[in-house]
């Protein structure tokens, strides 16, 4: 199985070298192989366990989409530059963090990913981005570094200084048993700071909305999952009820908070950023429920949210980048009826939004289904906390539906600018071929990938066997979904209302 790891390392090298020489083919092959290796490990068996492999595959997919998207994005937005190197190294660093097998590799890759993340956030040098970068360092980087140091230190108190560096990452949960509670709190706080959960959440909206779009896609799609991954690794050792319940409610409150603030935003990227906060909150909640109840279904829920969120959020962030390139603005009050101008973008956004709302048979639906089922299980076990939790979670889910509609108004809503604007001379074919195409990778995977992801989560975690009668409703809902999407697509081309505005910046 060692050979897999060497193949992985050589692919990582290939991507970085390909990035330096601007070679698309090498990078594309690299990412695809990077996605296949953990898949191989998942199906046939390999050095990684299910969680690592799953997150790694997601990182590779999001990395592929963002990396290819960057090629044209940097041309169209900045007129060249070296953004693609930053994006590639970033994606690869996140990927290797998930595939790290010992603590030292994990920490090295984590730190590199963090540093690259900072440079991605401040890529557009402005006062705003620098403030966001500063906040990122203080609220996200420092706490998570404290968490990493504490993790390493706690390990070395158990197994010795050098041995701690080479501890296998799968054993961390068992080794850390019986530490003083303050160390657990430090670790948990640090890791959830990376996932932007209350109380260390406020760095994320600025950072994710001000970074270039492909960087945001990686930051939001997979980077925040590093924190979740960290929490997952130390979780088996935490056995203080009060810590778990505290973080359970931090997560649930984050869900509602993120949803509410997403409603109040005017910038499409900020909507998405707050939506990320909401989802990580829900993921952390489910992980805590998993630890509290020892049932498998909350873990499945958490994993399903991780998968679905990574796919649709990266697709939507790339989509917001395209909107920005096309219309030169991100403010929702100045956008509307873009669907008439850029229908292919609109379709990609539609698929992702439906997944975000949770319409069957998208992966978002599966995630929400698991989430609700898990909450009901918890309700049975602990009626009081369960009631509060289920109320918060349902509220968060509803809010998700509302703000996704708000995002959709960029394509289908009324344009409230009020002034006649002029058409910009942009070749739509370029936009379609070079940018939109890559949004479809994560967006379509959110639909096509639903059965395999669901089956993988259910069977590999050993919850129950898949039954055939489940396939029929799934098949039916797929047909309804396709019909609905097709209808929307036709309608938006022949929208009855006639508007003068044809997209582009305000005069």
């Amino acid at each position, binding site marked *: 199985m060692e050979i897999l790891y060497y193949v992985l390392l050589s692919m990582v090298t290939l991507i970085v070298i390909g990035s330096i020489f601007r070679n698309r083919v090498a990078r594309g092959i690299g990412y695809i192989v990077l996605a296949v290796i953990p898949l191989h490990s998942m199906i046939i068996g390999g050095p990684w366990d299910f969680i690592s492999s799953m997150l790694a595959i997601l990182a590779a997919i999001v990395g592929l989409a963002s990396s290819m998207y960057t090629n044209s994005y940097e041309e169209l937005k900045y007129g060249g530059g070296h953004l693609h190197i930053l994006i590639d190294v970033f994606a690869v660093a996140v990927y290797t963090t998930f595939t790290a097998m010992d603590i*030292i590799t994990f*920490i*090295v890759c984590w*730190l*590199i990913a963090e*540093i690259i993340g*900072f*440079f991605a956030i*401040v890529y557009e*040098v402005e006062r705003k981005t620098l403030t966001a*970068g*500063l906040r990122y*360092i*203080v609220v996200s*980087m*420092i706490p998570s*570094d*404290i968490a990493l*140091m*504490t993790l*390493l*230190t*706690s390990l*070395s*108190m158990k197994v010795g*200084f*050098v041995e701690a*560096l*080479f501890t296998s990452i799968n054993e961390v949960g068992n080794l850390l048993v019986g530490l*003083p509670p*303050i*160390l657990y709190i*430090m670790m948990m706080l640090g890791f959830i700071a990376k996932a932007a959960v209350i109380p260390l959440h406020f760095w994320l909206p600025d950072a994710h909305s001000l970074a270039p779009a492909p960087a945001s896609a990686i930051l939001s799609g997979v980077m925040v999952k590093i924190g979740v991954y960290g929490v997952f690794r130390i979780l088996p050792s935490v056995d203080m009820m009060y810590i778990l319940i505290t973080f359970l409610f931090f997560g649930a409150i984050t869900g509602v908070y993120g949803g509410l603030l997403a409603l109040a935003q005017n910038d499409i990227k900020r909507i998405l950023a707050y939506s990320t906060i909401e989802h990580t909150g829900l993921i952390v909640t489910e992980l805590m429920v998993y630890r509290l109840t020892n049932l498998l279904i909350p873990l499945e829920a958490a994993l399903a949210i991780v998968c679905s969120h990574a796919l649709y959020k990266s697709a939507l962030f790339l989509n917001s980048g395209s909107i920005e390139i096309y219309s030169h603005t991100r403010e929702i009050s100045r956008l509307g009826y873009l669907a008439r101008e850029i229908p292919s973008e609109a379709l990609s956004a539609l698929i992702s939004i439906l997944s975000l709302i949770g319409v069957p048979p998208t992966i978002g639906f599966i995630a929400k289904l698991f989430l609700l089922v898990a909450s009901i299980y918890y309700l049975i076990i602990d009626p009081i906390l369960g009631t509060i939790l289920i109320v918060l979670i349902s509220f968060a889910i509803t809010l998700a539906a509302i703000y996704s509609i708000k995002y959709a108004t960029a394509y289908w809503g009324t344009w409230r600018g009020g002034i006649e604007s002029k058409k910009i001379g942009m070749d739509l074919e370029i936009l379609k071929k070079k940018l939109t195409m890559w949004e479809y990778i994560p967006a379509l995977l959110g639909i096509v990938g639903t059965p395999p992801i669901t089956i993988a989560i259910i069977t590999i975690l050993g919850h129950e066997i898949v039954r055939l009668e489940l396939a029929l409703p799934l098949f039916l809902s797929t047909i309804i979904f396709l019909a609905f999407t097709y209808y929307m697509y036709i309608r938006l081309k022949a929208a009855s209302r006639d508007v003068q505005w044809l997209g582009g910046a305000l005069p």
Partner: protein
Amino acid sequence: MILHEVGLIPILLALAGFITPIFTLFTRNRYFYSTYMLVIAVIVLLFSYKTMSAVVEGHIVVYPFGGWPPPLGITYTVDFMNGVLGLLASVLFLKISIYSFWYYGKITGYEWLTTLILLLMTGVIGCLYTGDIFNFFVMLEILCVSSYALVAFFKKRRWAIEASISYAFIGAIATTFFLFGVSFIYAAYGTLNMADIAAKAQNIPLTTMNLWSGLCIDDICFGNIALASVVSIALMLWALTFEAGLFPNNYWLPSAYTEAPTPASALFAGIVDKVGTYGVLRVMLTIFSSSSILMFKVLGISFRDLVLLILSILGMVSGYLGSLVMIIQRDVKRFLSYSTISHIGLLFIPFIGLSSNYSEEVIAKTLAAILFHSIVHALSESMLFIGLGTLATISGSRKIDDMSGYGRLYPIITLAITLGLLNLLGLAPFPGFFSKYMMFLPMIEASAYLQAISIVIISGISAVGYFRIIYLLFLPKPKNIQEKHRIVLPSILCISVALILLILGITYMIYGVYDTMVGYGKMVVSSDGVREYIMAVDIVYMKLISGGGK
């Protein structure tokens, strides 16, 4: 074990320094002076390496000057703590002398710079190796006086003179305080030898040294040693923390480091501040160790632990101060000076782990962490001074903004600078990460969570400043395209230091550097280790009269 090389190093350096002006009568060729310094540096490195290898074998190396038995004559005593720092000092000196081949082409008056650097090194090595507290004062004076002169080296610059005056004025007062402290000790203990003082302060019976310095009954030797110790520790720590640049005494440091010539700045940031740190460690660990006269209770905790607690808090203050002020600097050498202050803070923060209520294991780990961080910081900070100082020299300005985009013009040296900055930041394959990990570990074991978290927070804050430099070097396009300067030698020097750091980090993981360092640290801090230190000096007389020296 008596080793003659220990005594030879300061003598050689002092002689070499004092005869340098004579050479100006014959030649003013800059290559001559560079080669001269390089030869001296290689010899010093060999000698200190030999000393270090004897220390690593488990000996405590002693050299009595002039054959006088310990409390009467000056003794040089080297254990692991100062052996490591002495080797570090000679490595830095070698680095500087290689750099001088390039740097002397850019300035005039290099013969005097050579003299002053040699004298500075005399002071540094003398302070580190000496086993006599009055000799420590003398060497500190040599170090300080040559530093004043080095800071004012560019005497046409108004700011250089001002920096030198502000440094010299307070520095003279601080060293005088040290002299007062030494006088109190001499008046009460009747001896100046560190081992002898340590023995008397900890009530350890001696065989030969008390023949000369007398016996103690309880607290009374020649005077009341308890009182004298308290007063002298206050006075001495003032001078030592002044030299280290710890918080209330840090105001002179940025302007002095900034105005000094680049090689001198590299030495200042590399080793001169470590001399102050070493002095505090020697006083608190060997002379007044955890079973000493200073263990009486004040405010519920023992006086020694109170001092360590205060030092740790001051370390936190200077760490935060240095890292915060560093962010807004425009001058690149000032930036590095504040970075040095924050790292001095980091060196002092773990001092809480040296308190007597922790086990020897924790104390040894703390000491190992402090020493390792000293090494890491000295190597990379001096490399950064050389690298960024070179860029400042060729751009003719020390402003950070004027160096923007130099990453594309001079890729090798900027790569080295980036690696050095990442090392100071504590990125993982670099030893900087492991040194912070080493400091973090005993803090957690000692339940000093505030200190532990502060270490990471300070690194995090300083990340902003380091990222800014990296960003400015690489991302913008060069402002004014000028002719390319030849900086082959500094580039090679810096990149090789960066590679050495990388190799150090990797070997750290593979070989058991940590356990080795903790093992030697335990030899220094344990009560047996202190006793061994005292006995190694005590037995010199017997060796001398039995004839031979070996």
